[in-house]
Every structure is written in C-alpha cells, then in structure tokens.
C-alpha cells in the first residue's frame, strides 16, 4: 500500500514540476521581415488581429501552435491571454468578417518550416527547437 502511495506521490510531483517547466518561447520570423526586434505591444496587436504590420512597416502574417506548453507560455507572457480567450477573440473577428484565421500548426518543427518558407510569416517556438533558415526577433 505504502509503495503505491509513494508511486502516486512521485507521479503527482512529476506532473506538477512538468507544468512548471518554462518552455522559454521565442519569436521567429521569415528573413524577409526587416525588423530585428519587436515591442510587446506590436506583437500583441499582430497576434490578436489588430494590426498586420510592425512599426517599421514590415507586413507580417502570424502563425500559431495548436496547443501545448510553448503555446500557453507565449500567450501568457506576450499576449496576456489564455488559449481559450485568445481563440475566442479570433473567432469574433473571423465570424464577423474582420479577419482571416491565422494558420494553426501541430508542431514547432512545422512552425519553423512554415515561417522559413512564407514571406512575412511570424511565429513562436521554444528556444531549444532547431530553427535554421529563420530569424529570431528579440522582444522589447
């Protein structure tokens, strides 16, 4: 009985720790995007559909991760929303004719691939994900 209880505690502890691991989301962009950094405010505007260009005039198209800790961290840290509220905002825009839905991809590798091959694309991945062929934007 004690053994099972110990195993249960280990599993719970692992789950708690796993939830607290910081994915360290970074913002990536297609090399055609002129900017090398982006303000948090501009990033929020682009990823909530309020703007389609950065301060330097670069036209950008956001691309999203479907779910996962990197997605949750990016939304919390840079957009200030949880996933459900974030997607509700996009549905308001799409179903009232004010925007097209950004592409949502299943994996970080797919985001890197898409951003690398689409002019103006801007997305987010974890720092540890290989990201060749794209540029990393620092967030001010």
């Amino acid at each position, binding site marked *: 009985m004690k053994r099972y209880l110990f195993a249960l505690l280990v599993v719970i502890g692992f789950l708690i720790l796993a939830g607290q691991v910081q994915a360290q989301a970074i913002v990536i962009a297609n090399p055609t995007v002129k900017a090398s950094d982006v303000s948090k405010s501009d990033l929020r505007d682009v990823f909530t559909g*309020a*703007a*389609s*260009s950065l301060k330097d005039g670069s*036209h950008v*198209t956001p691309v999203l991760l479907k779910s996962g800790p990197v997605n949750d961290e990016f939304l919390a840290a840079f957009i*200030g929303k*949880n*996933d*459900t*509220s974030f997607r*509700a*905002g996009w*549905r*308001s825009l*799409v*179903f*009232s*004719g*004010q*925007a*097209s*839905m950004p592409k949502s991809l299943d994996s970080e590798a797919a985001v890197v691939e898409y951003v690398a091959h689409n002019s*103006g694309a801007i997305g987010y991945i974890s720092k540890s994900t290989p990201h060749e062929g794209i540029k990393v934007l620092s967030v001010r």
Partner: protein
Amino acid sequence: MLNKHIASAMLAIATLSIGLHAQEFKVGSETVQVHGFGTQGFVHTNDNNWLTMETSNIGSGAFTDAGVNMTMQIRPNLRIGGQVYDRKLGQLGDWHPGLDWALADYRIRPWLGFRGGKVKTVLGLYNDTQDVDSAHTFALLPQSVYPIDMRDATLSHLGGDVYGTIKARKYGKFSYTGYVGDQLPSVRGGYPYLLQIHGVYIDKSQGLTYGGDVRWQTPLKGLLTGVSYEESQVRNTGQLNPSVAVGGPDIMVPYWEQSRSQFTKTIYGTYTYKNLQIDSEYRYFWRHFTIFNGQFQAIVGTHAWYPSAAYRVNNWFEVGGYYSHFDEGWIITAPGQFEAPSESDPSRHIYDKVITARFDVYTHWYVKVEGHFMDGNAAGTNPQYPDGFYPQVNPQGLSPDTNALVVRAGFSF
C-alpha cells in the same frame, strides 16, 4: 417528444463538431478558408413565454443557429469573403438562410482601411459579434442592449466603412470606424412579428443608415472605453388588415410606415485583468415613426445598460454574471392609445439578474448553463416595441416576473 428532438439536435451538433474542422482549398494560387459554427439552445421559464418560444411548460428547443463563411486573402492588405447565416428562434428566423456579410476589405495603412459590401455594423462592444456565441461567456448577451429577438435591427448595412487605428504613444491608441449604407432589417425579426398583432404584415424593410464608433485603448493595460452613434431612416412596407387595430373592412391594403427620427447612442467600457473581464455599456435608443400609412405618430425611447463580469477559472470552465436594466417610454397618437405608465410598472421595464457557467468540454465544443431572474416584462397587454415578451405567445396575459433557465451548446470550426 420535444425532449427527443432536443436530444437528437444535441447529438447531431456533438457529432458534427467532432467531424468538422476548418477547411482550406486553393483558387489559383490563393487559399480559401472555410469556417463555420452552430448552436442549439433550450429555454425553460417558470412563467410567461419568452423570445417567441413556448418556454413555460417543459421548455423549448426552438433556438438554433448556424453560419458558414469563406474568406480569401488576395493580397497582404486585401481580403474578400462572405458568410451565410440561418436561425430559428421560436417564431423568428424560420429557417430562411441569408447573406450575413459579404465584403472586400482593403487596409492601406494601420490608420486607414476600407470595407465595402454587406458589412457588420460596429455599435458598442458586441453588436457586430453578437452571433459569435462561442466567443462570449453568456448564453444570452445582456438583453437590454443586445436583444436576440431584434438581432438584425442594427446588425449590418449594405455600404462602406472607413476604419483604422492611431497610436498615441503614452496615451494608448484610438480606433475608429465610420460607415454609411442601407440598413436591411429582416422581415422575420421581432418587430415585424410584433406588428402582426395590429394586422400589419411587413414584407420589406430598408433605409439609409450612418454612424461611427471611436474606442480608446487607454494606457492602463486592459482598459478600453468607447462611444458609438448610429442614425437611420427606415421605411417599412407591407400589407395591413384595417379591421384588426384601426377599424375598417376585413381586407388587406398596402401599408407603410416611415421613421422621422431614429438613433442609437452608446457608451461603453471593458476591463481585462488576467482571467477577469468586466464590461459595462449604456445605450439610449430613440425612435419617432409615422405609422399606419401616415395616420399616427409613435415615439419610443429606451434606456438600456448593464455591468457584467466573467472569470475564466481554467481552459474548460468560466463563470459570469450580469445585471441588465431596460426601461422604455412611449407616446402613441392613435385613438384609444395612451402614454406609458410610470417606470415602476412591470410593463415599462425588465431588470434581469443573470448567472452563467460555461464549460469548454472539447476543443471546439462548449455548453453554457444560465439562470435569468427577471423583474418586469416591458410589454403588458399592448407592447409598443419588442422586448422579448410577445402577446401572440402569451394570450393568457403576462405575469410581472419571470425566471428562466437557458442551456446553450455550440461548436465552431
């Protein structure tokens, strides 16, 4: 039997929601996105039939809507698209699909864009997104400001918008929308339905509308405030049976009514802090109509406001509540008619206290459970303007208070 129909509808929605996903296809080199949504509601009231449904016995599931849209981003700053929408709400809508919006949107600069076609009208916080149930906490938005039986009264216009956002450095940013066009209220909405008690059958409703909205994203993070104004000159035409309300032969004759002055003023604010959202809105509506082929004048003025709060506990659960205040006054110059009684009379007001729980049970699939506790019906025996309670479905008369349970499930893809 009714429960069986509701269960079937719920099952169909659940099945559809799991099977349907956003689709894309190519036209030439361009991608066309396809998105859609649907909802099924059930309403039970302890007394009084509400929203043209037979809600007061076991309840009614005649509360369904759905929409499908296609959009194509032709250039980085040029987008076209359209949406078809259909609904059944008791005696309203009646499964007649219509073009909800269809537009071309050209954004030249962040501070200057144009939209043309059939465009959703920006008026207050949620007029243009009131059908997007999946984006809202509440099963029914505050009915004083967004009456679902009157959804299409100010919903869209056939014309053009100019819009944009101007950043004001440390003062936040300002967004504006200005528009002009033709308003096209549905003939299957609450107002034409109400007129049937007077022997009036509207078959066309149209008129010029124009207005604007300015909203300020303040330097205080999460706080937005704004004002909207809309004016319209609507003309309704159809058939009149004079024997019903004004005396005369039992025949149908041509009918018209025309607005002399009609406007809506709105002031609003919303504040978001982490998972908490607080909204508030005040709307004043004024309507001076020449009715019954020019014989009489009808003046209606309504005050509507609400504060609401919603808190998202986690990704699958949200709670919220609001207090919705509605009162109306009127003067009719027709013989035998009279001015409105005092506001304390139940026929002049609806004060609605609401509490909601929302469950996001699957990625694109949710259920809302909501309780309404209404003081007043703003209708009495001779309502002058729609407000949710209609004599046609309440032939026995109306009780002053109504409690309602609303369950609404939906999906989007």
